[in-house]
């Protein structure tokens, strides 16, 4: 039977080895097995974006991957952004701009913005809006989120 598999992977620079049921989604593995509960789980069909993490550097839905598929992969979750007590510039900008209220969408938005800014270093507001169109926020109305991301790009530029 192939209903369980051993996987090895790196998450935020730390190596893990684990025996996982093959039908466990990656987001459930991160939260339930590794106790990395920063990544949130929302709609579980790829629409809301709350579970977005970086898989080998690319932003993806961790609810639409199986944990076994991450065997050998290098993952980065929201817990990997800050360096010790030092928040990542994106996190600081979100805080400064009040880009979150309940915080449910925040980890997915941060990881989305992380790849977005890596690819588009001085984006227009319209590009930012398109870039975050795959992440649903029900509190802020998006304006402060867009501002926070623009802030970071201007700081860096």
């Amino acid at each position, binding site marked *: 039977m192939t209903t369980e598999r051993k996987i090895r992977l790196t998450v935020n620079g730390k190596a893990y080895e684990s025996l996982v049921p*093959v039908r466990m989604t990656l987001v459930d593995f991160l939260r339930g097995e590794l106790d990395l509960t920063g990544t949130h789980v929302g709609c*579980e069909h790829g629409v809301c974006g709350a579970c977005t993490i970086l898989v080998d550097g690319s932003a993806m839905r961790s609810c639409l991957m199986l944990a076994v598929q991450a065997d050998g992969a290098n993952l980065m979750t929201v817990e990997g952004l800050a360096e010790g007590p030092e928040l990542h510039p994106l996190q600081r900008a979100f805080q400064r701009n009040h880009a979150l209220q309940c915080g449910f969408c925040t980890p997915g938005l941060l990881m989305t913005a992380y790849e977005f800014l890596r690819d588009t270093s001085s984006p227009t507001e319209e590009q930012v809006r398109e870039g975050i169109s795959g992440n649903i926020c029900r509190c802020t109305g998006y304006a402060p989120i867009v501002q926070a991301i623009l802030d970071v790009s201007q700081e860096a530029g």
Partner: protein
Amino acid sequence: MKPARFDYYSPDSPNEALELLGQYGDDAKILAGGQSLMPMMNMRLVRPKVVIDINRIAGLSHISPRPDGGLAVGAMTRQRELERSALVLETAPLLSLAIPYIGHFQIRNRGTVGGSLAHSDPAAEIPAVCLTLDTEFELASSAGERTVKAEDFFLNHLTTALEPAELLTQIRIPQTVGNWRWGFQEVCRRDGDFALVGAATMLRLDDRGICLESRITAFGAGGTPMRMNAAENHLSGSSVNADDRSEAARLVSDALDPISDIHASAKYRQDVAGVMVRRALEQALLPMEGEDAA
């Protein structure tokens, strides 16, 4: 646990995958990018007994020039790779134009060309573009290989010519020779949503701007993307002026018999498909980079 129980295989070679497919057939599902299959499994709309994950097979992901000038694209090529490919932009610009409309970049980072074609959502962009580009599909099973033309590949709503034990390995996009121009248009409520309806167009013009050949595809307006023959015929030999474009749009609307659903009514789809065709034709006629506006 979200998905129902299944047995999981992650073959390293196409042959191994074909053997498994031959063995399990209807009970098995191929897992490519998972951006359509995983939502269905998470909601338990699909409960495969066996999942055959083809992500570890080397060689299924590539974008390569063909000796005859066309392009070969491996089934596991991520949509995002197509979006970024200079070779695709050069050889099949219609594809480059359409890819950014697929979902969001996080979806395109994982979703594959083959998955989109095999899934064959009537509103999907890649099937519409492949139909317009006269793409050929290479299918393999343990019994052998065959090639299917785009016009024979899309059969019905979410149904293609793929047999349960077949794997789509790559597509071949023929070279387009001559002065071709491209247009791609769709409407949706929000960025990244599936199109309510859309159109892809290609025009080949002679030096005087007379249309030698045209291709028009409507999508999201029936079970599969559809070539609009009456409109194509109307444009051939014309100068594709405003009247010709309006007539093509009318012929398209007339030819369609779409469905109503929660996203849009049949009447809306029928009318707006014509509008999308007209706009895609206008887009195709815009001066291209490095060309005089005159």
